[in-house]
């Protein structure tokens, strides 16, 4: 049994038209609306994933954050697909997509919009992109709840249900959006996986 401590080995924040990786600003584009900003991130990091264009804003945001989080920071060959999981939280569920879907129903209901009326689809998108097959979960919390997140993820790692976990917050509603993703692994180095550090990085 591994006695290694759980550490945050990478983090990514996307908020207020700025992208941070490991607490350092790596991209910003002020004064554009967030749909434009999400596309700018996709282009800036030279991502190539045609499915991106079909995603709703919640999935786009979470997927982009996961790309930045994992890029040059994660050696997925160290793990089996079923050892890597995702635990996400947000406050607004899929309400942004719900409203857009319902507006479209007045004409004709679209399956490609309806599928995004579930908050866990963003988890599925990240799993598909990376081939992650471990446990995942989507919880609704009134605000970012570092203690709850730490407790849930720590349980999965301590009990060897997962060996690596992407966790955090991905929330979109209207003009408001924020992603804060953390890669947590059992390792000797990294930032301590604790409430204080989660909160500090979240509110960068």
């Amino acid at each position: 049994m591994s006695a290694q401590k759980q550490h945050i080995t990478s983090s990514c924040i996307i908020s207020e038209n700025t992208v941070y990786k490991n607490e350092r600003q790596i991209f910003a584009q002020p004064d554009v609306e967030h749909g434009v900003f999400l596309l700018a991130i996709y282009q800036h990091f030279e991502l190539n994933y045609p499915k991106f264009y079909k995603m709703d804003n919640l999935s786009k945001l979470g997927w982009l954050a996961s790309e930045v989080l994992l890029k040059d920071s994660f050696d997925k060959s160290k793990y089996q697909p079923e050892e890597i999981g995702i635990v996400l939280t947000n406050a607004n569920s899929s309400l942004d997509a719900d409203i857009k879907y319902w507006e479209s129903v007045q004409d004709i209901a679209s399956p490609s919009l309806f599928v995004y009326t579930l908050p866990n689809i963003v988890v599925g998108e990240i799993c598909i992109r990376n081939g992650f097959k471990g446990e995942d979960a989507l919880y609704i919390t009134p605000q970012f709840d570092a203690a709850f997140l730490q407790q849930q993820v720590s349980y999965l790692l301590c009990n060897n249900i997962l060996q690596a976990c992407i966790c955090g917050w991905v929330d979109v509603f209207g003009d408001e959006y924020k992603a804060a993703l953390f890669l947590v692994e059992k390792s000797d180095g990294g930032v301590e996986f604790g409430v204080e550090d989660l909160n500090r990085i979240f509110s960068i």
Partner: protein
Amino acid sequence: MGTSKKDVFIIADNVYTPIGITTQQNFEQVKNGVSGVQKHDRPDLSDVPIAASIFNQDQIFVPGEHTYTKFEQLLIASIIDALSHTDIKVDDPKTGLIISSTKGNISLIETEENNEALQKRISLNTSAQLIAKHFGFISQPIIISNACISGVMALVTGMRMIQSGRYDQVVIAGADVISKFVVSGFQSFQALSAERCKPFDKNRNGLNLGEGAATVILSGDEKYRGNIRVTGGGISNDANHISGPSRTGQELGDAITKAITNAGVKAEDIDLISAHGTATHYNDEMEAKAITHAGLQNTRVNGLKAFYGHTLGAAGLIETVLTKQCMEQNTLIPTLGFEEMGTAPLNITTAVSKAEIKNCVKTASGFGGCNGALVLSK
């Protein structure tokens, strides 16, 4: 491994559906072959008639003056009945509350003006706070909205929270309401059957939707020894497609195997599987492959969607409670709608019969590629 794990007992439960408002009523109805799925001509739900299991429009769930929505009333009514069978204290910080729902109050979007107040009213956070306040829970409610595995995931989460010592007892309630929002979406996927659905049958042609609620109260208190236990859970992702199930069923199969291992039993110890069995072509085929992958192809399987329709976030809870009844009464219940094997071969139940049932598996799968399984043990 796992031998020192705390046992988690089911100490009370409720199933609240169009065919009964207690667990006992529901189990009797199912044993008698009574289905909640009927044809409805309801323009408020669909432009064309649908087959669904829905409550009467004038049915009252929580009498008296209040502002609870139908979704919240279903949760309250179900929790009231479940709590009436125990003496647990809801205002104990060691009592948890988990709410499971796929779409919660989304129906409000259809009739109310879209503004900030409505958006707040739709939020599952608002509903959870109202429920917690109604009963006097003091712990922060935990809300799970993970598509159609929400109910199974809520039970697995509750089990672990008792095993880890975070809570001594947990009230787990799930509900979903059928509205035009949900119906139109499933129609757009051409996933709905115009007739009562036929899980695992050769002629199955889609699912029925259903509404309902269920509550399960778990406790780690040894005084409940002898009650049915929740002993294992496993959750996985297909990493294949956001709206289509895995082609191989391997990932659901892995979730089942993880749940069985977690429970400290073996595949040959499982006496019954309560399948997700939505009666769509792809789900049932995937599930049959998954059950085979987990080495359970000869184990008895039931599917209850022809009784209840697909009750979304409540389904995992409703079907787990009925499975618990099967175990307590050593009774198998039939898979209504099933006549001829239409997937990889499984041992599907077709009639009420007596059998010793010691360990059961409950499965669920949903959009986003998620799969969940749990084990109940005597």
